[in-house]
């Protein structure tokens, strides 16, 4: 159809633009879109609004984000950044442009999650959540260990095996939680809180997940989870992913382990093998101590015995014996009574001292003299009369008293 040459004018620019605007702005689809593209022509004037162009290989789309939304966005926009923008399509009548009125911008694609990670990390770091002073010591010898991880998967099995091998004395409280997906962050937070609420509390909590893609580990970068880790009363060892994976929960935890197994190892610094060694050493120490105690007591005993020997009457008896020998040498026949007396005294003493070799007086040639008739011991010459019995070492014999000269001698003195 050819346009008629003198067609009546139906539109002004304004009314047409208004018409187009109505067309676009009443389209339900266009009022709720997520558009992916790369940022270019980024401009942030003093007004606080953000202007940009979103483009891909084949097209470009003007976009604006009003100040109210712009201040809520944590993303630091840059030209060239791949983003997904949410908003509605509208028309800027003055400029004759349709454009995207954006209310949310997210980083997407390669590095997008990493950007988000860096931003949250910076935010929480500034809050001091990762400060070293906040870190608590992991107890050396835990009695109860809490575990937060998925009930399925290798992580829980690895950790239980490690704990069983290293320190089966402990009690494990397992608080299962999904570790990926949208549910994971609130469930992880719940599990940590439940372990913190236990009485008695576990001595340490292992927060763990096996390896996976960066998206799989994302729950451990969730702000709620990171805050729960930092806020836990119980020290937390975080073992998420592999050696090279770092999550924000790792930063907030009191100790970072490269893997779940390593987390279980770090929680059990002392193993049963080491405890057994300790125990053997202590057993040995006990015996040594007792032995040295016994030795000391034994030495005390020896020195007491020596002291006792020094003070013992046996010394006196020896000197008596010497004295006796002298007496024996000097004594004449009359002295024999006294000697006999000494001998019998000595015998009495010797009898009391069982440890001593008794003095065999008689074997030395002395004799005991008694009266034959009544057995009275003849201690004095004057007692010796009539028949007497004389005992010597191998027996006795009887004799008659002939005279008592010594009595006379004694009298003369």
């Amino acid at each position, binding site marked *: 159809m050819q346009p008629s040459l003198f067609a009546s004018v139906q539109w002004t620019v304004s009314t047409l633009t208004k018409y187009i605007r109505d067309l676009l702005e009443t389209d339900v689809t266009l009022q709720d879109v997520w558009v992916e593209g790369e940022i270019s022509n980024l401009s942030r004037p003093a007004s606080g609004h953000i202007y940009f162009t979103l483009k891909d290989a084949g097209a470009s789309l003007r976009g604006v984000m009003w100040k109210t939304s712009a201040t809520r966005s944590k993303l630091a926009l840059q030209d060239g950044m791949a983003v997904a923008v949410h908003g509605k399509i509208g028309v800027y009548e003055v400029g004759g442009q349709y454009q995207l009125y954006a209310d949310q911008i997210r980083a997407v694609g390669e590095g997008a999650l990493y950007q988000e990670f860096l931003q949250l990390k910076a935010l929480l770091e500034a809050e001091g959540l990762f400060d070293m002073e906040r870190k608590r010591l992991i107890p050396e*010898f835990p*009695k109860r260990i*809490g575990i937060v991880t998925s009930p399925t998967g290798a992580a829980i099995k690895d950790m*239980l095996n490690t*704990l*069983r091998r290293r*320190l*089966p*004395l*402990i*009690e*494990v*409280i*397992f*608080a*299962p939680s999904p570790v990926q997906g949208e549910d994971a962050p609130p469930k992880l937070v719940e*599990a940590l809180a*439940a*372990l913190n*609420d*236990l009485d008695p509390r576990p001595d340490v909590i292992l927060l763990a997940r096996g390896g996976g893609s960066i998206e799989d580990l994302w729950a451990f970068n969730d702000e709620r989870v990171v805050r729960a880790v930092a806020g836990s009363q119980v020290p937390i060892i975080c073992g998420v992913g592999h050696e090279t994976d770092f999550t924000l929960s790792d930063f907030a935890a009191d100790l970072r382990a490269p893997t779940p197994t390593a987390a279980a190892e770090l929680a059990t610094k002392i193993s*049963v093998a080491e*405890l*057994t060694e300790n*125990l053997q050493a*202590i*057993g040995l*120490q*006990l*015996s040594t*101590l*007792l032995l040295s*105690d*016994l030795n000391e*007591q034994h030495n005390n005993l020896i020195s007491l015995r020596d002291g006792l020997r020094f003070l013992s009457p046996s010394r006196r008896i020896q000197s008596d014996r010497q004295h006796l020998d002298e007496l024996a040498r000097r004594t004449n026949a009359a002295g024999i009574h006294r000697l006999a007396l000494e001998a019998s005294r000595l015998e009495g003493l010797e009898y009391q001292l069982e440890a001593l070799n008794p003095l065999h007086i008689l074997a030395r040639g002395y004799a005991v003299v008694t009266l034959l008739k009544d057995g009275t011991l003849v201690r004095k010459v004057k007692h010796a009369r009539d028949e007497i019995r004389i005992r010597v070492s191998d027996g006795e014999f009887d004799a008659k008293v002939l005279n008592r000269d010594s009595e006379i001698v004694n009298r003369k003195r």
Partner: protein
Amino acid sequence: MPKAPSPKSIEELTYESAFAELESIVAALENEQRSLDESMSLYERGQALVKRCAELLDKAELKVKQLSGNELNDIAEE
């Protein structure tokens, strides 16, 4: 004075309490004067504690409980 042998029978002691008592006995034997009788009975108690601890280490089995909600349940592992 060394810690008097606890009235608790040795069979009831946990590893931690048995080990703690053992350590106090060693310290007592090391540092204090006592009669031979006391030494002997400390030593005997110490040896019994060593035995108890060793048994506990030998027999120890990891106890695993599962927390669901606020309830603790034993879980049977396959």
